[in-house]
């Protein structure tokens, strides 16, 4: 299982802060986002390719082509605005 965390506006739109999802052993960040988007509804909306969102894997910023494996912590969030 892969743990998914949502933050800020994404967390509010989706309505959950955390969930778990099963993925094939050789999945990528892009495949995970695709799987979430395929759920339709708010997922398809907030994760649309035209929207600006970021992904971190195990607390490091990640690219769509980066691999993910069982036990990873994947976070999806809007561009950061701290400071």
């Amino acid at each position, binding site marked *: 299982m892969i743990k998914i965390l949502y933050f800020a*506006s994404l967390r509010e739109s989706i309505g959950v802060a955390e969930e778990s999802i099963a993925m094939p052993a050789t999945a990528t960040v892009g495949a995970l986002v695709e799987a979430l988007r395929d759920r339709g509804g708010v997922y398809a909306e907030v994760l649309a390719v035209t929207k600006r969102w970021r992904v971190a894997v195990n607390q*490091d910023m990640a690219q769509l082509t980066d691999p993910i494996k069982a036990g990873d912590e994947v976070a999806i969030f809007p561009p950061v605005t701290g400071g």
Partner: protein
Amino acid sequence: MPTIRIQADDFDLTHEQSLIRERHRHVGAIASFVGVVRDINDGQGVSAMTLEHYPGMTEKALTNIVVDAASRWNVIDATVIHRIGTMQPTDQIVLVMVASAHRGDAFAACEFIMDFLKTDAPFWKKEQTADGSRWVDARASDESAQQRWKPT
């Protein structure tokens, strides 16, 4: 070596700077940056600001940024404090303090850390305005401020 803290409480500039001065007798220059809640943003009045973060990743990202800075400039010590929770206009949000032997390094490392904090550290601001609350949009200017540190 660097001090990285995420906290709801306010911080005290003099106190943080004294800690650094007491620890190192070769420090000649301390550059500091404090980000403050403004009472206006994008033309609208702001009555309060709430900071959300990604626990764990924030500390990791900030540590990486400070380590990067220390690899580029003389950094004798550095302190980064970022507040979370709800703040009012004129409240302090963030402190970046860098101590070096000489001022050029202190200034450059301090600004570098601030620029990367703005683009790479997982914090999000939500503003309270007369029309309700809104998430603050990321600024293109922050992206370009960060890009200019790329080696050419």
